[in-house]
């Protein structure tokens, strides 16, 4: 195939660049608006223009709020998101690893029925479990708490983490397991000696996937956590953006703060992110 620049190839590049520009418009909007002062952002004639200076005031306000105006900062909510996302991600990854191991290498009778039944759980609209969920969490004393929300994310993370690990472990040659068994390893021994040491790339994919999903999640959090000081950053951000008096520079700064952790992961570990993404369509 010729790779010289002929008109057709120039056309391809023009299209690709045009799409890239369109895709980056929201990023431009975020950066430009958040770097403006309140007076600048109010000037609608300069709505789309870059800021006059490099002003970080909006980030400071979004981060620590204006207590005298009763405006809460997002710092607390960012921390809540960390407290929520880290344990929920680790727990659901470990569960997924165990399940994936058993369901790929130790298929017991009925495993081929149980697995699809499990997978169905990742497709359901979560609205269809919200009412029993809030009731149950209240009954077991976890209503309105971060621990309750962690439990919820761990449980509803089981299908996808199991799926990714199952597909991942299916690639491990059975000979390696048989060799370990000849050495006398049992089901748990095989896991610790053979599977777990091989699991690092699998764990990276699953941890990135779960971290992104839980960090970005909204419906469970907004339904379970009523106290503003407990809410994760997505819920706090939506409240900030939904308020009547909107200081757009601050809202955009807050949006960037909420987006940066998952964006960083995507930029640094994009390869693994895409693998998780493609695993989500059942067939990896």
């Amino acid at each position: 195939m010729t790779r010289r620049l002929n008109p057709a190839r120039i056309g391809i590049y023009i299209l690709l660049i045009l799409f890239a520009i369109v895709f980056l418009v929201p990023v431009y909007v975020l950066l430009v608006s958040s770097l403006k002062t309140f007076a600048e952002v109010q000037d609608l004639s300069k709505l789309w223009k870059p800021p006059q200076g490099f002003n970080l005031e909006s980030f400071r306000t979004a981060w620590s709020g204006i207590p005298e105006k009763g405006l809460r900062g997002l710092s607390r909510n960012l921390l809540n998101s960390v407290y929520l996302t880290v344990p929920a991600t680790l727990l659901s990854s470990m569960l997924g690893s165990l399940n994936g191991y058993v369901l790929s290498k130790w298929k017991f009778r009925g495993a081929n029925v149980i697995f699809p039944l499990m997978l169905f759980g990742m497709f359901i609209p979560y609205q269809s479990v919200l009412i029993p969920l809030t009731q149950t969490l209240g009954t077991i004393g976890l209503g309105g708490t971060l621990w309750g929300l962690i439990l919820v994310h761990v449980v509803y993370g089981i299908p996808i983490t199991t799926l990714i690990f199952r597909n991942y472990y299916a690639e491990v040659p059975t000979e390696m397991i048989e060799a370990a068994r000849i050495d006398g390893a049992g089901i748990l021994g095989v896991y610790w000696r053979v599977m777990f040491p091989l699991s690092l790339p699998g764990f990276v994919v699953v941890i990135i996937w779960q971290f992104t999903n839980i960090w970005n999640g909204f419906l469970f959090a907004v339904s379970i956590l009523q106290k503003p000081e407990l809410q994760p950053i997505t819920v706090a951000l939506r409240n900030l953006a939904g308020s009547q008096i909107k200081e757009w520079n601050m809202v955009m700064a807050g949006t960037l703060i909420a987006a940066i952790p998952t964006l960083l992961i995507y930029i640094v570990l994009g390869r693994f992110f895409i693998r998780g993404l493609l695993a989500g369509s059942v067939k990896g």
Partner: protein
Amino acid sequence: MSHARRERWIAFLMVLPSIILIAIFVYGFIAWTTTVSLSKWDGVEPDYTWAGLENFKQLFTKEGGVSAKRFNIDLWNTLFFTVLFMLACVVFGLLLAILLDQRVKGEGIFRTIYLFPMALSFVVTGVVWQWIFAPGTSTRLRGVNALLHAVGLDALRWKWFTETNEIWHFHVALIPVIIAAAWQLIGYTMAMYLAGLRGIPEELREAARVDGASEIGIYRHVVMPLLRPITFSALIVLGHTSLKIFDLVYTMTGSGPGFATDVPGIFMFETTFQGNHYAQGATISVIMLLMVALVIIPYLIYTFRQEVEL
């Protein structure tokens, strides 16, 4: 007990906690929600008095008044949203994948740009696109309208997601929301197609070339048929996403004027947690579940039957 049997038991016990959790939190809770949808629970305190299909009747017949009207709009909105959103994602996702498959320089950069929205929360997307499509007023134009005015294209200005007009049952206010949703998921669709394209052996294309097929002909007759299963998977993922969409619309526009951008997810959330109409909320979510199940269950059966055959 023999050694092998004992290990089978351990295997089962290892997944048992997950099985129990899924049994309760998915299947048990769905049954529970269905019970609520058949009850008279309308207030903070649970009330499981049998109501039969009354709640469903209220959503689907004139007796339901505003609720029925709202739900009717919700269903039409879901239909149009789903179809247009899937169409946009598949068309642009495939186009970008094919363009990137032409051995372009800087492929990695382009791919990163098209796919980064997938790393964001729907809430983040909602906030930014709300700013972009906020119409402002005729004296204080905002967002795209301000941009259109600046370049002299005032004729193209409109009220975007605050528009109440509808074409047949299609609320045009949904268009900006569909654009935002497509912006977020086109990259994902592209990644699926790109993985598919990379999985096609070069020999197949080479053979077609030897037979005298043109580059376009190769795409039409060799590549596209092989991508069909990917289109199928993409439509399932996109379809079930849009049938239950909530975060994005709730953040970006809410219900909109006259429920122009309302979806069942918003109705369910508001009526349950703000209105305490639990039975109605449960009814809406049962209908949402049925819609998603109609798409997902055949897909799961199809996928696993194939796996067993392999």
